[in-house]
């Protein structure tokens, strides 16, 4: 009897607090997504409306896809996005190929220099690209490799973040499976790539989202190392519009921004399930 009453009481209060929670979440979501909303609205506004003294929710004059036209014609956006794809994929592939075995070794093996290497990994987490930038720039200049895809990708081939993440995930991989595989005659190499990696797809997927997002949006290093237009990466392509001297063609800037930000958001949308799962699996403990 008492349980039933408690149940109904709980249910009602649950509904009230759920309703409240949803409201707060929606309000916060609105606040956090407001910049995106303004970005989209500006794409469909004529230049005159962009900076008016009063605030309007919707464009008073709808100019359709005009800004997209301008954006696409004024900047080589397609080329820029292709560059972004090439760089991100190139970086990601090397990152995974080098950090997976490294993390596996750190997690499961004993070997000389293990703790030294792990300390270097931790050190690496604290080192932003600005630190090795000058020596890397000078080095690349010496071998005349500036302004190339390689120069864009090189500093990022090593990902200590990937090593860190994967080690967490691999460490808890069941020992029995490994032993069984060994007894079956599988080499350690095959065990890693045929058993461990497929089992850890979510973590690798999660990391891939991080990596692609970071390198798609990277500004500092490309700014230093790229000089020709056809090597520009997405943020550099965007900078073509953000010009204080002329006051910035805002509509086109926002159109370009939408086009350039969209792929990343798309990737995230598609990979969301694995992304969350992957982060959970690393058991950030």
């Amino acid at each position, binding site marked *: 009897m008492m349980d039933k009453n408690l149940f109904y009481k709980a249910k009602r209060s649950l509904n009230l607090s759920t309703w409240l929670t949803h409201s707060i979440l929606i309000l916060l979501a609105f606040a956090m997504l407001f910049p995106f909303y303004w970005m989209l609205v500006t794409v469909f506004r004529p230049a005159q409306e962009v900076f008016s003294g009063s605030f309007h929710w919707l464009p008073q004059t709808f100019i359709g896809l005009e800004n997209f036209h301008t954006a696409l014609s004024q900047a080589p956006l397609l080329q820029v996005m292709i560059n972004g794809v090439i760089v991100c994929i190139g970086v990601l592939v090397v990152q995974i190929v080098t950090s997976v075995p490294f993390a596996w070794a750190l997690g499961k093996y004993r070997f000389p220099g293990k703790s030294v290497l792990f300390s270097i990994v931790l050190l690496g987490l604290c080192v932003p690209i*600005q630190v090795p930038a000058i*020596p890397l720039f000078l080095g690349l200049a010496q071998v005349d490799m500036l302004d190339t895809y390689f120069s864009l990708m090189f500093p990022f081939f090593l990902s200590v973040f990937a090593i860190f993440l994967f080690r967490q995930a691999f460490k808890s991989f069941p020992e029995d499976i490994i032993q069984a595989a060994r007894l079956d005659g599988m080499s350690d190499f095959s065990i890693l790539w045929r058993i461990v990696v497929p089992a850890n797809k979510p973590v690798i997927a999660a990391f891939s989202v991080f990596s692609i997002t970071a390198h798609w949006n990277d500004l500092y290093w490309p700014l230093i190392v790229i000089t020709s237009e056809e090597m520009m990466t997405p943020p550099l392509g965007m900078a073509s519009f953000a010009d204080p001297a002329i006051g910035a063609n805002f509509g086109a800037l926002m159109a370009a921004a939408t086009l350039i930000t969209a792929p990343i958001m798309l990737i995230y949308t598609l990979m969301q399930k694995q992304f969350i799962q992957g982060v959970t699996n690393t058991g950030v*403990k």
Partner: protein
Amino acid sequence: MSTSNVLKMPGLASIPIRRRKSKFDTIALWFVLPASVLMLATLLLPIVVVFILSFTNYELGNLEFSFIGFENYVRLFQDSQYWKSLWQTLQYALIVVPGSVLLGLFLALLVQSVQRGRKFYQFLFFLPVTATLVAMATVWKYLLHGTIGPVNHLLQSLGFQSIEFFGDPNLVLFSLSIIGIWQLAGFNMVLFIAGLMAIPQDMYDAARMDGADRPLDRLFNVTLPLLSPTMLFVIVTSSITAVKVFDTVAVLTQGGPQGGSDVILYSIYLEGFQYLRTGNAAAMTVTFLMLILVMSWVQTKIIDKKVHYS
């Protein structure tokens, strides 16, 4: 079956243990080789070069340079601009870290507490993390315009005075940290959600049986303590991210107005790539690195004590 059992199996007893052990070692060394080479080339060697450069007076473009010992460091410690940018970086971090950590935690708790729509909210709140900063920065600059920006419109309609977000040197760091929190909160939220999902339901049931029935009780007695390892990770990574602030300063304020947003990485960028005083920039870089290492170490030590490991 553990390795030792395998070793005791008949037939294998004749194989000297040392050789078997070294077999595993070797494969591990092959595994770490590729990344180690990269480590050397893109991390360690450049740091060493930066370290060496910090003792020279090399300027980018010069044909020659000389070693000047600790002169760069001495000059640095006497430079008030340098201390100012260190202090301002710290101020920025002191706003962004608690802001993004608490907001991330709050969002995670709320999102996980509803039955429906979790994925939807997770998606929405993570979006800012994926956006390209060059574009969003220009948007923010307008949103935070001192008079005609929407945020000020809102403030004015609520009866407050309008705030000169980017024009006032005393406020500019705060304005930048709003953007910083905006970009980081979603990321932290995801990490916290992962941590929350790892808390087994039995913990809550056990707590309820012990009398901790109300949500706040559950929060403080079960959730937060069990979340503390995640909390440590989030705080340390947020601190490092905050101290590495550069993009927003470079795109929006260029250190202004009147040096109000000079942060350490931007100062290094100016010194090394604008004024081309490479030796000096290298010295600043070395001190920056020391700072981050010390900060991370200290944080880990302090917070680790409070962490509850299951």
